């Protein structure tokens, strides 16, 4: 059979090959290299790099920072995102357009632009400071930039669309008559929410939280601009070990810890979503 005829008979393999080959060479192999390299210490192949990393109290402080910030960002994004997703699924006409634009437009604006904007917003004389003084809560504007509060606020802002959109798409698939049916059967609003709406939107909540959490764990630009060098997360420590400290051993090991953490988040989220009757 000529190549052309085989192509027509079963083009699938030939069509798939270039992309799969590309990702294998420039993505899978390098990641495996990194994984392998992280085990090679001064004394050859060993667990010594990990023992050194995990035996250091500073590392645990960094891991603690990373997980604490990511949890707070996810919580903030959920508290704002869930009601916003409900509002979006109910909105019609102009209100719907306004909501969609304010979610999609920031999504296509670069992270450096937004992180820089939060420097302005949180800085001295910034909008948030002025607002806090105007409400009378504070006598003078508190320091916001280069604090954990500023970091969480900025990151929650950047990742909020990734919380709203998955919940919104699940709400879109939900039959709006279900809560109504529950109401007809005499269910109270609270009961209806906890027994009908919340369980049905759970796959969206899991997906949204997983997105936001894993992005917050690995964010690099936002902490660099909003909290500075003295505060380290796994991602900033990894980046800085390569770019400034020239300590590739440390960088490779923390990169692998970060990689394992991200994969664990994705796998546990998809397992959870399947368990709760995932739509996605």
């Amino acid at each position, binding site marked *: 059979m000529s190549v052309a005829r085989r192509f027509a008979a079963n083009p699938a393999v030939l069509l798939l090959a270039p992309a799969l080959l590309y*990702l294998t060479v*420039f993505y899978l192999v390098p990641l495996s290299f990194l994984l392998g390299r992280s085990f090679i210490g001064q004394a050859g192949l060993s667990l010594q790099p990990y023992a050194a990393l995990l035996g250091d109290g500073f590392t645990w402080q960094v891991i603690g920072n990373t997980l604490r910030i990511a949890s707070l960002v996810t919580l903030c994004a959920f508290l704002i995102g869930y009601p916003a997703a409900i509002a979006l699924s109910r909105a019609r006409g102009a209100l719907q357009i306004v909501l969609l634009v304010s979610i999609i437009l920031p999504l296509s604006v670069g992270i450096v632009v937004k992180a820089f904007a939060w420097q302005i917003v949180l800085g001295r004389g*910034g909008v948030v400071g002025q607002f806090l003084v105007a409400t009378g809560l504070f006598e003078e504007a508190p320091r916001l930039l280069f604090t954990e509060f500023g970091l969480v606020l900025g990151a929650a802002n950047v990742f909020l669309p990734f919380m709203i959109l*998955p919940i919104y798409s699940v709400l879109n698939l939900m039959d709006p008559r279900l809560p109504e049916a529950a109401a007809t059967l005499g269910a109270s609003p609270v009961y209806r929410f906890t027994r009908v709406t919340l369980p049905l939107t759970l796959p969206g909540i899991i997906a949204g939280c997983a997105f936001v959490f894993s992005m917050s764990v690995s964010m690099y630009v936002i902490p660099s601009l909003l909290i500075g060098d003295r505060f380290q997360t796994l991602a900033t420590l990894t980046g800085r070990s390569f*770019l400034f400290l020239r300590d590739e051993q440390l960088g490779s090991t923390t*990169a692998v810890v970060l990689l394992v953490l991200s994969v664990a988040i994705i796998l546990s989220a998809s397992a959870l979503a399947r368990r709760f009757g995932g739509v996605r």
Partner: protein
Amino acid sequence: MTLIERACNALILLVAAFAVVFLLTPLVVTVAASFGSSPVFTLPPPEWSTRWYERLATLRGLAPALFTSLQIATLSTAIALVLGTMCAIALTRGRVPGSEGIISFLISPLMLPALVIGIALLQFFRELGLRDAWTSLLLAHVVITLPYVARTVIGALSLFDYTLIDAARTLGCSYPAAVRKVLVPNLAPAFLTSGMFAFLASMDNYPISIFFSDAWTKTLPIQMLQFVEERPDPTIAAISTGLILLATLAMIIGDRLVGIRRMAQF
């Protein structure tokens, strides 16, 4: 409607209003700051001016960085579109065993930390002896842009009716001609929106590009962050305003092509 329900609805609307203000704050503040006259940010600015835009022309390093970014983003998006579309045809048309797994693999670079992918590629390229910044950037950016294209085009193709191609072939088209005349026009919106998102993702990428930049080859986000560190004045806000304008344009085009509601399908 009971009192509790009304209170709940009011709360939902209140939070949604807050979300709108919160989401748009960085964009509005950036645009406002870029038109202010003072080098210190105050809102509202004491006077409006375009002096920061005039300074853009004299900012060293901006033009080459913008040019590099545009080159890398255009080329990597084009490569991703070709590779991603070929995959999408194979996966939706051919009976490929384990296609679910292949799709997950194609999209997985989006879910892993970009920084880790960057470091892995840095070490790998060094092992290969590849030292050219521009080539490294292009090779790395295809890894980022490919998932965007694959995700959208696979989605669009799974809705495409392949009997149309068979019909075209019955009418005398060769297979490649049928693809070109029937499939390509049908998929144009998916190509354009996914290409746009891929392009923007490449233009915006920092955590991978940082490892491949040298003194001569820098992408726009890297040059911008360097400006921010050197002198954080509203000139950066002026560049940012340009990028916000680009994103707005992309959104309007996307709305025309597929509708804003479909762009929200995640």
